[in-house]
Every structure is written in C-alpha cells, then in structure tokens.
C-alpha cells in the first residue's frame, strides 16, 4: 500500500495544488465532535463576518458567517462562501436536539447534492488528530450520506504519542498524507489558532476543488439516507471495522515509533502533561475545592470586577450624556417638554441599562471562553456531576446556577456551556430563582428596618430559601414538563489542556456581545420606554404630559390596582406595589422606588434606612393589621421569586423564545404570590 498520493489518491493540500472553480454561493458545513477545534477554525475562517442565530424551530445556537478566501497565487479568484458552525457531535445518530440539528443539516445537504449533483455545498469534517479513531467513525457516517467532503485535521500540535518523546511529535504533513491515502479525499492539516501557520488557504482550495469534483471516501458504501445509517449495531460494526482498517493503515504508514495511536496495540501508556495536571484538578480531595475556587472567581469577576465599569458607564450616560441631550433640546426650545422626558428618561435610560450590562456580559463570555478553551470546563462538569444529577442536569449546570447568585444575566450566558438544549432551557428557567446581588439591597433594607437584631440571620435565610426554591422547582419541572430530561451516564471526553488563544477569545466575546445587544438590548430599551409612558401619562388630574406626579400617573394607577391582590400577603399598599413594578425593571431600584414613593431621601446605606425604615414599618403595619414583620418577610420572599429583571427576561426570550419565557414568568408570579401568602399567614399565627 502506498502512503502518498497517486492518480486516485490526493496528496495533502498545503498550497495551491487545486483550482478554485467552485461556485461562490455554496454553503460549507463544519461538522465534528465536541472540542475538536471546530469553532476556532470557524472564527479563523470568518473573522468578524459572523453572527449567531437559533436553528429554525429550536433553541440550538448556530454560528453562521462569510468565509472570504483571498485570490490565490495560482490565479484563482476570490470566493465568498456561507459557512455554518454546526453543534459538535460524536455521531449522526442524534441523541439530543443539538445533535439532531447537525444530523439534519448533513441530511439536507446530502439530499440537495443528490438532486443538484455538484451544486449543493461541501462538508468540512473537522478531525482531532489526537483522537483519530473516534473522528473517523463520524467521518464514515458523513461519508455514507454521499455529501462532498473535505477533512480538516486539527490538534496536530497535541498529537504526540504515548512515549511522550520529542520523536513522537508528528509532522502535520506526515499524518495528513498517511490519512489521505486510505481515505481518498483531501486532508488538510490546519492550525486555526495560529493563522500564519495556517492551512486555511489550502482548506479553501480543497473545498473549491471538491465542490467542482466531488469524490467518495474509499471503502465507504454507496450514498444512503442518514436515517438508515447505523440503525443497528451490526451496521455500526462495519463502520468500526472500516475505522480499524484505516487506523491500521495510518499506523503502518507512519511506522513503528511514530507514537501515533500506540495504546490500541496494548503498549504501556505514559502520563501526558494533562494527566499530570489532572492528578491535582481531578483529585478526590483537591478537585472539589479547586472547582469551588473557580466558581468563586467567576462570581467575583461578574460582580466586583465589572462593577466599577458599570458605575462609570451609568455615570456617563446619566450625567454628561443626559445633560448634553437636555442642553441640545433646550437650544431648540424642547428643554422642558415631554420630548426631553421621552429621550432622556426613556430612551437614554434604556440604552444606558443595556450599556451597563455590557461589562458584566463581556467578563462572563471571556471567562467562559477561557474555561472552555483551556480544557477545564469538561473537568468542571465531571467534578460537579454528582451535585446536579438529582435534577437530571449535567455537572456544568452548577456553574451558571452559582453565578446566578451574583447576577442572573451572565448566568444565563453561562448556560451555553451545557451540551443539550433541554438542559439549557431547564437551567435557564431555574436561574431567576437564584437570589442575585440586586435583591440583596431589598433584603438589607427590610431586614434592617423590621429585624434589626437579627438582620444577618434573616438575610442568610433568604439565600437558603433561594437554594430550596431552585431545588424544589427543578424537581417539579423534571417530574412534569421536563420528564424527557434524564440523568444520563456521564461519558465525557477530556480535551488536553491548552493555553487559550486571545484573538479567538476576543472574536468570540465580540460576537456574543453583538448577539446580546441585538436580541435582548432591543427589548430592554422598548420596556424602558413603556415604563416612561406609564409614568408620563396622567390617569387622574390635570397634568401636562411628562409632568405627572407618580400617584396620578398610569404607573401609580397600576400600583393602586395591584395593591389589593397583594393584601393576603400583608403588603397590599401602594408603596409596595409600586416598588414591585419598579423591581420588574431592575431590583437595584426598589429601594429608590420606596424612597421616591414616601418622598424621603434614598438612604446611602440600605442597612441604616432611617426615615425610610420608619415609613416602611408604618405602612407595612397598616396593610398587615399590625403584623409588619410577617409582611416584610413575605415581601422579601415575593421579591426573591416573582420575576427576574427585564434584562434577564429579555435574554431568556433571546435564548429560549417567547413561550417558555412567558410561561415561566406567569408561573413565577403565581408561585411567588402563593409563597408570600403562606409566609405571611404562618407568620401572623406564630
């Protein structure tokens, strides 16, 4: 057998050995297993020309982009292609909605290819050089569909052999050539983390070549529908046998001592660098403290680290920028009009809210990227698996749930690390029940006002209630609408540890921030404008538009209308109702809302509420028939459970759609009311 190219076997393409003759509109699908470097390759190919969308009818996130290949030295013209980064999978026999998106995309392309011949598109199968047998199995499944395909070989820098000796390091061309021979399709070694080292141009040429001249993978049968592939173990066995044949041929080509795939032959396995690191990070005693330390670091980053930036943005928007807009409007005679209110108190406040969330989201996206790229995230899932198993969730779900105690919004962002859409949805619905730091200001105010001697205990109890709510709601959801989410056997491939690549990380953060602004940002701004309208329009009295006292506004009317509904919980007064409406926008402003409605100065420290505390005691005592303490406890429980802030809701809608978001909101409102009534009614009887 020859290891290198002949008339029917293409040599590995490293430079202009193919002609770019492919039509530029053909899509390119990136297909590969998890952690094979697929997204890194996608980022390198598309640069800033990318965006994230949900696959039609699903909550599965897809990245699409434009792959612009430069004109080559051989005279071929520049080509633009639409490229799709499909969810990672080990098999086309899908076991989750994410994997189904990938399988369906390949099936659709195969069908188009069967109908249009060479005008359908190309699949780039991204194969991990450190795990060729597993990658070859997926390649075999894709090849069986009959789609034109090219192999991109990644992780070559990590493809060292078991001997761990320098000699074992593979030359990229050597492995690619050894692989191309038995496969009969182009195999391009790529190093997407270092664009200069490249392979990207060669990949473009290979894709163009295969688009124009499709060829089949050697040894794989005639095209068949994906639905028929490997339906039984017997068929899978034929693919396993093919994988073993190819693996043996590659090993023979590379020769003994190449170090490749040695442990299939039973040789002694030496510990790699990653094995040595795992001795600590997965140690039965050290692993959990390390994991908790990582989570603590995330918590700190998304709260304390981002806080100064948030404060600066808020100061700039509400200070100099608002003043500038007001001054500009004054120059055209609109300085005191409703137009100023609409632009400054509505639009600018909305935009400012979105902007203030950008630092915390950027920090979270960057931190998750580091955890993912470094290889630690898979270890975190392994370490935390036991804790989440009772909820049927992956160990990775623990990370967003803990981050939620800092801020719900970045916690939602962290759900993207979960591999299955249903698990992401379940986790995303539980996150609003984690008591974010904004709610803490409400607890501090009320606990200080009503239980000054036991304020710390009361606040601690609120966090315990939050944990119990997460567990309780999780168990209820698992036994009802999430019965399909089951605790699956944990079988995780642990990627080798790597140093995160800053450029790739930056591009990923930028893309995700853009998606947040475009998706959730618009909803936040519109909601802020709606709140302004409610406050600007009078419900009673003769007031000019935008010059309405809160009590006479539509907002005040709404608070009065809502107050009786809250009476069974002991806080059926206008002040509490208005604060809860404001709390829907942002929990941070509940204290300010109380101060505004009582016409007292907002206390600089919520723990020393002063006059505001006295006002609260009076009105809560009145609305509860003398049981102000019980009413205050009920109010805190209600604030914990009734709804997340509008930014969190907007992000939920972006990630999961309107229906789950609205259903969860209604369920939370109802649940919070029941809990608050329960707390108050029990409280008055103690």
């Amino acid at each position: 057998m020859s290891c290198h190219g002949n008339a029917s076997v293409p040599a590995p393409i490293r430079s202009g050995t193919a002609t770019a003759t492919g039509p530029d509109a053909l899509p390119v699908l990136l297909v590969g297993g998890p952690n094979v470097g697929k997204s890194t390759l996608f980022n390198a190919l598309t640069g800033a020309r990318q965006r994230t969308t949900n696959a039609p009818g699903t909550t599965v996130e897809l990245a699409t982009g434009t792959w612009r290949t430069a004109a080559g030295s051989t005279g071929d013209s520049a080509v633009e292609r639409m490229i799709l980064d499909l969810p990672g999978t080990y098999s086309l026999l899908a076991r989750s909605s994410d994997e189904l998106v990938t399988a369906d995309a390949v099936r659709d392309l195969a069908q188009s290819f069967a109908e249009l011949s060479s005008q359908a598109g190309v699949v780039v199968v991204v194969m991990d050089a450190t795990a060729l047998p597993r990658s070859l199995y997926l390649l075999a499944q894709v090849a069986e569909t009959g789609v034109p395909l090219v192999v991109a070989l990644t992780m070559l820098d990590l493809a060292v052999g078991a001997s761990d000796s320098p000699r074992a390091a593979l030359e990229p061309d050597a492995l690619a050539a050894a692989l191309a021979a038995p496969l009969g399709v182009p195999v391009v070694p790529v190093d997407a983390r270092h664009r200069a080292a490249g392979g990207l141009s060669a990949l473009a040429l290979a894709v163009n070549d295969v688009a124009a001249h499709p060829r089949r993978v050697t040894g794989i049968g005639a095209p068949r529908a994906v639905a028929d592939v490997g339906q039984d173990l017997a068929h899978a066995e034929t693919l396993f046998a093919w994988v073993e044949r190819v693996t043996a041929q590659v090993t023979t080509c590379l020769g003994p001592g190449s170090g490749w795939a040695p442990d299939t032959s039973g040789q002694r396995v030496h510990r790699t660098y990653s094995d040595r690191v795992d001795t600590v990070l997965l140690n039965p005693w050290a692993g959990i403290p390390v994991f908790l330390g990582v989570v603590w670091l995330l918590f700190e980053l998304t709260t304390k680290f981002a806080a100064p930036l948030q404060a600066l943005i808020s100061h700039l928007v509400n200070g100099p920028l608002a003043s500038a807009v007001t001054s500009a409007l004054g120059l055209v005679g609109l300085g005191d009009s409703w137009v100023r209110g609409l632009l400054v108190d509505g639009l600018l406040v909305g935009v400012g809210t979105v902007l203030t969330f950008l630092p915390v989201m950027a920090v979270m996206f960057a931190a998750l990227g580091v955890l993912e790229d470094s290889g630690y995230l898979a270890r975190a899932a392994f370490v935390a698996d036991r804790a989440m198993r009772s909820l049927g969730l992956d160990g990775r779900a623990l990370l967003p749930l803990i981050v939620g105690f800092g801020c719900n919004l970045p916690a939602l962002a962290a759900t993207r690390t979960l591999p299955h859409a249903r698990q992401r949805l379940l986790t995303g619905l539980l996150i609003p029940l984690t008591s974010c730091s904004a709610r803490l200001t409400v607890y501090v105010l009320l606990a200080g006002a009503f239980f000054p001697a036991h304020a710390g205990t009361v606040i601690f109890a609120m966090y315990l209630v939050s944990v119990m709510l997460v567990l309780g709601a999780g168990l209820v959801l698992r036994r009802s609408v999430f019965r399909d989410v089951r605790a699956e056997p944990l079988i995780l491939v642990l990627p080798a540890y790597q140093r995160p690549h800053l450029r790739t990380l930056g591009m990923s953060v930028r893309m995700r921030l853009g998606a947040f602004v475009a998706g959730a940002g618009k909803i936040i701004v519109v909601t802020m404008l709606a709140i302004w309208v409610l406050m600007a329009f009078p419900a009673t009295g003769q007031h000019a538009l935008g010059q309405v006292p809160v009590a006479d506004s539509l907002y005040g009317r709404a608070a009065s209308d809502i107050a009786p509904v809250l009476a069974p919980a002991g806080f059926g007064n206008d002040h509490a109702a208005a604060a809860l409406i404001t709390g829907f926008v942002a929990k941070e402003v509940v204290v300010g809302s109380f101060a505004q409605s009582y016409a007292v100065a907002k206390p600089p420290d919520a723990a020393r509420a002063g006059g505001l505390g006295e006002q609260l005691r009076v009105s809560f005592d009145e609305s509860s028939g003398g049981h102000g303490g019980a009413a205050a406890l009920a109010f805190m429980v209600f604030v914990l459970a009734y709804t997340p802030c509008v930014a969190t809701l907007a992000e939920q809608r972006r990630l999961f759609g309107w229906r789950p978001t609205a259903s969860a909101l209604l369920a939370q409102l109802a649940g919070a009311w029941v809990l608050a009534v329960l707390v108050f009614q029990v409280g008055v009887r103690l």
Partner: protein
Amino acid sequence: MTLPESPRGAHLRVTGVRLPAADAFRLNEMGIRRGTLAHVTQHAAFGGRVIAVAGSRYALDAQTAALIDVEHVEPLG
C-alpha cells in the same frame, strides 16, 4: 471485575458494557467497546474514573464505570 475495582495505572481490556442499549451504543460509537484496551489514569471524587483509550481521556461517573466489565492485561514494552 468492573472498572471501579481497577487501581490507578492499571492496563485493562473491556470485556463487556452493561449499560442500557442506547447508552452502550453511544459508548461504542465513542470508542469504548468490547475488546478496547484502556488504562486507568485517574480516580476522581465520588467514584468517578478517567481512562485513556486510543490517545483520548474519558471521564466516567461511578455508576457508569460500575457497569463496564474489564480484565487486566499486561502492557507491551
């Protein structure tokens, strides 16, 4: 003998997978099936195990590991 009973550093051959059929099939697809040679690289918390198979490292929870039957083999070289 099952996987959790094997000490760290042991060289093994998989002799059976007693997981539910769908789970066992996915394990097969990922490269762990009867006859596969494996090496225990790590014992983790709560009985989890990490094994090396064909250059990859697989983390398995205690329950899953307990349903994988293995036998000891002597490594070559």
